[in-house]
């Protein structure tokens, strides 16, 4: 199995005012292709910080993040931006661009990567169909329910055919009934489309679907389970 992303001796220290806060205290974690990892833990345990590192949004204070063997800390801002195009992000609060329609939001990710108009449209429509939003493509985020918005966000994350998906509490802001559908969708992406998924969740049902669960506490991994 090929390693998609790997954390080696990862430490992150923030300055909260003048007080240093150790968000991560030495994380070692390897994610293989096709993996589905759920990171669990109470708030403040460093889950989101770790996720940001995996997504090349943030750099570690000590240690390394290797994405497909490349050390992220050696990259400049432009190279990091290029790298992020190979990572699909899904956020708790969807983070869609409000003035763009569902289809345009998905297209935006592709246009950032330099795709042409026709390719973008075709791909976006296909992806929105995959996530079950075939009939809602022209709607703006404000016209969509939470679950639908998250589906758009998932379609957007898949837009550039990413190496892996990073999801920060994807069901955290959705009612439980809709959340179950999202959980199924994510599970299906992993099983049918062989998407590599790393997600942070508080949702027990979500964690149950993952192939691996990683329990974090105070910036360290305290338990790892393989389902």
């Amino acid at each position, binding site marked *: 199995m090929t390693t998609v992303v790997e954390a080696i001796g990862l430490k992150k220290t923030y300055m909260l005012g003048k007080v240093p806060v150790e968000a991560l205290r030495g994380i070692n974690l390897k994610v293989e292709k096709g993996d589905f990892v759920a990171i669990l833990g109470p708030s403040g345990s460093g889950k989101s910080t770790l996720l940001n590192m995996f997504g090349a949004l943030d750099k570690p204070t000590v240690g390394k993040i290797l994405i497909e063997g490349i050390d992220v800390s050696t990259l400049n*801002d432009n190279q990091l931006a290029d790298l992020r195009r190979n990572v699909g992000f899904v956020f708790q609060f969807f*983070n869609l661009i409000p003035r763009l329609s569902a289809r345009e939001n998905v297209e935006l990710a592709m246009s*950032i990567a330099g795709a042409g108009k026709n390719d973008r449209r075709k791909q976006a429509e296909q992806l929105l169909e995959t996530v079950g939003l075939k009939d809602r493509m022209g709607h703006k985020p404000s016209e969509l329910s939470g679950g639908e918005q998250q589906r758009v966000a998932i379609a957007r994350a898949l837009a550039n055919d990413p190496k892996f998906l990073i999801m920060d509490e994807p069901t955290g802001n959705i009612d439980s009934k809709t959340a179950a559908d999202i959980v199924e969708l994510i599970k299906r992406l992993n099983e049918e489309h062989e998407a590599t998924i790393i997600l942070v969740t508080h949702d027990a049902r979500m964690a149950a679907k993952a192939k691996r669960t990683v329990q974090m506490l105070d910036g360290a991994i305290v338990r790892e389970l393989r389902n």
Partner: protein
Amino acid sequence: MRTSDIFSYAFSAIRLRKLRAGLTTLGVVIGIAAIVALLSLGQGFQDAITAQFQKGFATNTLIVSPRGLQGESSYQLFVNDTKTIEGIQSVTSAVPILQKTVYAKVGERTFLVNVAGVNFSQYINVFSSTFVAQDGSILSNPENESLVIGARIHDPWQNGTTVANVGDSVVINWTIVGADFKRENKTYTGQVVAVLGEVGGFSLGGPSDLGIYIPIQWAEHFFSSSEVNSIIVQLKDSEDSTIEATSDAIRSAFGGQVSVTSSTAVLSTIETIFSVIELFLAGIAGISLLVAGIGIMNIMIVSLMERTREIGILKALGMKGRTVLLIFLGEAIIIGLLGAAIGIGLGLGLAEVVARVGFAAMGQSTGGAGIRRGAAVNQSMSLTISPVLTPSVFVGAFTFGLLVSVVFALYPAWRASKLKPVDALRYE
């Protein structure tokens, strides 16, 4: 990201806040409109004056007059001084102009006008395009009582209500103040033999719409003086070297007591004055554009804060800092282009309105008053001005509008491009 995509994204951001973008654009519009209106009016004004000037004063003519302001000079030029000038090489003729401000009774009305004594045949020769009879005829050997009147003496209100026509008589009153302050009133009656066509504008030594022209011999006799105000000198060509050499020769012939004005010199002076005035006006208008630029910067900084999260999303999706910069600059470019385009149109429209309403009113008032009061200055302001947008002003206004917009957007755009994705995404 493709350039067209960058612009369409920038445009979608502008469209979201139409009022705000509109007001920001308005700032640019006003600045550019002010610049274009002032410069195109200035250019039109300059063109009109230059055209008038060239019409009334050929390039191969010089004006010789006593040094200093009229009346202040102790030096005097006389009719027979033309002989001295005619003796100079490359001078073809010298036309003395004996001019006084008099009361002239024309029909029922009395006007304060300039009466100029000139040799009709010589004067026609020099001012062949303006000293032309519209009505009647100008004889080269006129009788003493002949009068040639300007178009505005004939028809003061320019509405067909004529007060003097060919064949009418005009009574000229002239008061001589003697050395002992004794006043002697002289009256002379002349017959209108010709009405000049409309000259317009002002002329330097040439015929004026408010002038009355009489044969020089009569003027000498009537005014009991052969002191002339100026002598118009016609040269055999209009080469700069000829003008210069002849000017020098005339000056030295009169011991440096006369000033010699050439039309080219006056034209270049006019152009210099205008370019300074235009620069000054454009500078003032430019300030308003700078204010607009500050407005752009202000709005961009506000927009930057509002859109911090959006920038975070874009960066998380893999957008480079450079592209974020370009999106912000793209918004400024769209505002700048739009503002410049509307501004140029509005500026031209404004200039047109000012030219039609403003200058027309000015021409009316000064022209009208001129007849009754101040025809002493041999000019009226009834210039027709049409604003001229030169290609350089057009391009300059566009460039300046765009430049100001982009320059003031640089700082907010740069700040946007430097936002860290993690911080931007966390921003509420």
